[in-house]
């Protein structure tokens, strides 16, 4: 029945190919993404253009449909995996060519919490949006956050918790940052299923992010605002 039409990626024009890449990202097709990235490189595209015009643009669509309850975690994980395939090719080239940086994020799940599904999604979507991400993994005590912030000097700290029993620990970390006079050096984003905006404000975070797509949008906005403030000040 299925009258499937085999699409030859290298036969497509640049515009068609970029559109196809967005669909392939959406469908989580890693090999096709890797192949298409290679084709665009051969055609003389800069790594930065491939990243922003194809991969980031495609992941933005995935992010929006995730936010709107059209896609769910399994589909997003597949899409992120496909994006990672493309990123693995582009990453060294981006460094070589001195492409502009979006910003850097340190992210980790707090002490006592093993859940890293949401955190991984945020990390992947942030990478998909062009951010550099340092993933601290799960079960992080306050000392580990402080150490990593000092050594990595990121723009953003992201914290995740999924349990009623672990979410207050985010406050412990923010309090420690305040005590050390480090709080204003970073944009602090928090997330996790039991949280909400009011909770984020109450513990002193810059923003609560409902899901990975919102995290990316918030990160972009707050990093841009920080840069503006710095150039104005």
């Amino acid at each position, binding site marked *: 029945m299925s009258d499937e039409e085999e699409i030859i990626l290298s036969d497509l024009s640049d515009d068609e190919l970029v559109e*196809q890449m967005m669909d392939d990202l959406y469908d989580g097709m890693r090999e*096709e993404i890797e192949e298409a990235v290679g084709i665009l490189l051969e055609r003389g595209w800069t790594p930065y253009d491939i990243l922003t015009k194809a991969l980031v643009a495609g992941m933005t669509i995935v992010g929006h449909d995730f936010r709107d309850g059209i896609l*769910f975690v399994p589909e997003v994980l597949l899409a992120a995996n496909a994006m990672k395939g493309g990123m693995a090719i582009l990453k060294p080239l981006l460094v070589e060519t001195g492409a502009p940086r979006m910003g850097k994020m340190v992210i980790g799940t*707090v*002490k*006592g919490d093993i859940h890293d*599904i949401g955190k991984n999604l945020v990390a992947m979507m942030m990478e998909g949006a062009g951010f550099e991400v340092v993933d601290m993994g799960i079960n992080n005590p306050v000392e580990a956050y402080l150490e990593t912030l000092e050594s990595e000097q990121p723009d953003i700290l992201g914290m995740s918790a999924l349990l009623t029993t*672990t979410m207050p*620990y985010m406050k412990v970390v923010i309090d420690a940052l305040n005590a050390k006079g480090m709080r204003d050096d970073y944009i602090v984003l928090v997330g996790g299923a039991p949280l909400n905006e009011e909770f984020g404000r109450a513990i002193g975070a810059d923003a609560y992010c409902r899901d990975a797509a919102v995290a990316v949008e918030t990160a972009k906005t707050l990093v841009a605002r920080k840069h503006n403030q710095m150039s104005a000040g």
Partner: protein
Amino acid sequence: MTDALTKMLATRDWLLADGATGTNLFNMGLQSGDAPELWNADAPDKIRALYRGAVDAGSDLFLTNTFGGNASRLTLHDAQSRVQDLNRLGAELGREVADASGRQVIVAGSMGPTGEIMAPLGSLTHDLAVEMFHEQAEGLKAGGADVLWVETISAPEEYKAAAEAAKLADMPWCGTMSFDTAGRTMMGLTSAAMVQMVGKLAHQPLAFGANCGVGASDLLRTALGFTEAGATLPIIAKGNAGIPKYVDGHIHYDGTPDLMADYAVLARDCGARIIGGCCGTMPEHLRAMRAALETRAAGPRPDLDTIKSRIGGFSSEVDGTEADSPDTPARRGNRRRREV
């Protein structure tokens, strides 16, 4: 021999389950990030007090303090070698409190998610998941749990693994999932899809349903979805007491006892037979729920507008069960794999 929960369900229209575990333990001094299960060994009096809180408030069934008692979760606290012990102790304390209550109270052995993503998407294999759940189930059985209580699950694969573990432990079981993402589970499962999935299990649960998620209104919508989809097994509704707020250094859920009382009778009207709370539900909420279930007459099946006006709005417009609704957002086409 018929198990205690089946017997109780045969004689009663509705049962009151318990409320929160984590929220209550915080109030007893649990530190954020610590494993509640360790208290089964280190602070048994506090766990007895937790259980008694529910029993004295009128719960017919309560969950053991073993939610995170699987090897995957306990590894965080370097307690993975104590899975059987911590679960057995949690159930033994429950048995003790239930048997001293002077009435029939069911001890339900709580089994929460592993926290890992199952293969092929993630790394946790079906066999390993079954093994971890089975290990926990044997501990709960040894401690005298009447029934296993699988809860807060997102992935159908994990639910199935837990069902298999219950079979291996030769235990009756119940299982609820958490519908916290646009009315579906994090993995995208709708309430209707859960009914289908449960119907196909070889080792059927005694009851199934929803717990936690995003507040009481969403949970009632999910319960309506279960009955709409033709569920025949008893339905469990364990919703959160509102949403969490951070007040004076503590987590506080904003749902009042009055709200939870309303939620309880509405849950019954939605078709639920085992009704309780989840995060934020304290003994005073349970008391109000019990009183409401006992004194208020059953009403007609509520519609979504009734739920909205009495309990509050929903977290999303739709929950994936309204296939033909123009509000249901459409997935983009798979152009590469198009079929004609």
